[in-house]
């Protein structure tokens, strides 16, 4: 071990505290959701068990989580597909400078930094004025796209920045058309990144609340259902539901990294 300066230990301790701050609350609700039937909303834990996790799947007095979960799942998949479909061509266009590229870039950034309540209100007003009905799969989908597409686009720009163009040039020299080059050369090469971007887009949509909150129509997505629950549920079932969706999100993030590495490895072989 080389000699480390004092600042290393100081900052390492700070970093450790930061991780505690970051994960402590999540660990707390994991523990509290694993209580027996006599469990309460606060410590101490009297007994451990899976009672409350089971409760989530039972018929609830205050709401039903299976259908909102299915909606969020479908919506996430749709958002994921659309985000990839539009952001990949856009990122390809950005490999070369073109007139107006700057404006389009700023438009994308604007979509990320516009206060999210404006997106919700704006789309709500738009549907109202046009006389359309708001629904999670129409207005909700649009709101989710304003949040996920910029992320997908920025990540894809990063991917293409590190992309070696010599393979494409070779294909073109051999007489391949633009479409063939994309389909045969570029697509397989960016496939690992697409898996990652797709799943991250999915989790962003799956957990989105603010932009959807005013415009989901009659049927709630899962985060909206959970939000409704916070005001009228006073049992650890709330934590159990939180634990389950967080575990699901973690699994998705894990799948994103695993998928990325799996395809990247297969590519190298």
């Amino acid at each position, binding site marked *: 071990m080389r000699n480390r300066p004092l600042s290393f230990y100081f900052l390492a301790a700070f970093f450790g505290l930061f991780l505690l701050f970051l994960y402590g609350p*999540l660990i707390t*609700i994991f523990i509290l959701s694993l209580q027996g039937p006599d469990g309460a909303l606060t410590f101490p834990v009297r007994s451990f068990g899976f009672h409350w996790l089971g409760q989530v799947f039972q018929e609830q007095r205050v709401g039903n989580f299976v259908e909102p979960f299915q909606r969020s799942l479908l919506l996430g998949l749709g958002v994921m597909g659309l985000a990839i479909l539009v952001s990949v061509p856009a990122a390809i266009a950005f490999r070369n400078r073109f007139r107006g590229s700057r404006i389009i870039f700023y438009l994308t950034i604007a979509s990320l*930094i516009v206060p999210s309540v404006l997106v919700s209100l704006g789309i709500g007003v738009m549907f109202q004025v046009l006389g359309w009905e708001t629904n999670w799969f129409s207005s909700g989908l649009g709101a989710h796209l304003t949040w996920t597409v910029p992320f997908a686009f920025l990540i894809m720009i990063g991917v293409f920045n590190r992309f070696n163009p010599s393979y494409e040039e070779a294909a073109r020299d051999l007489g391949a058309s633009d479409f063939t080059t994309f389909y045969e050369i570029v697509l397989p090469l960016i496939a690992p990144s697409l898996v990652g971007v797709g799943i991250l887009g999915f989790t962003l949509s799956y957990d989105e*609340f603010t932009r959807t909150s005013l415009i989901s129509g009659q049927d709630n997505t899962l985060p909206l259902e959970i939000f409704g629950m916070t005001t009228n549920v006073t049992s650890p079932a709330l934590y159990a539901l*939180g634990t389950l969706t967080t575990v699901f999100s973690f699994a998705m993030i894990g799948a994103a990294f695993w998928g990325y590495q799996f395809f990247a490895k297969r590519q190298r072989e």
Partner: protein
Amino acid sequence: MNWKSLQPYLLVTPQTLIFLVFLVFPILLIGVVSFWGFNGYAMVPGFTWDNYIGVFTSEVALKIYLNTFRYVGLVWVCSLAIAFPVAYFLAFHIDSLRWKVILFLVCTIPFWTSNIIRNIAWVPLLGKEGLVNQILQSLHLTQQPLEFLLYSDFAVVLGLVYLYTFFMIAPIFNSLMRIDRNLITAARDMGASGFQVLKEVILPLAAPGIAIGSIFVTTLVMGEFVTVRLMGGGQSASIGKLISTQIGSLQYPLAAANAVILLAVTLVMVAAILQVVDIRQEL
């Protein structure tokens, strides 16, 4: 126009259409509706300044705006104070690139999970019978449970810092990673102290990252209402919460006027940050 020069425009069309339909048009419509009237249950097309006059002459609205600025300021200071040391530690004190990336990912994972759950998770810690109060009382540091921990401005700021520090860490880490290590060695060789290196070399080069993080934190906090609702209880207020309440009672024109002001204030803040720091090299 031949095919080659048209190609980039065709490629960006689908994405741009999405932004035009679901971002630009709705926001323009908010601008229009902010001049409409309201008859008690629906909005009435027309042109009136009443909504804006209503906002600017209302003492309550003014207080809410000031309170939102206070949140922005506090969250900005706290998230910067946390993010810079964390990013600095990862960038300069962890030697292997592999570990840098792994530890950075560990910092980012909670960001990809639900904001609502992350807020709720504080309740069993901060509540009146929460873990923090239990510990404080069992150590005899306090006699009574501290009430300000939850459902207070303190809780709101804590929740916001908890949710959004990631947006500060990522750009600062990115800036720090790009700093040429030779610059630091050179500064040291010329006799600079550790503090001088930080002040004269690292901070100026990290400024664009700090600026980008500040833009994200500022804009996210400006429009926030979930955390204010969940962590603030009934008393705390922000512009976002005000707007969502007005929408809840179908007062769209009034909500739209507030939204326009919110957007204008946010843009002024972003412009101010860009005046101080040139971020173009990061884009």
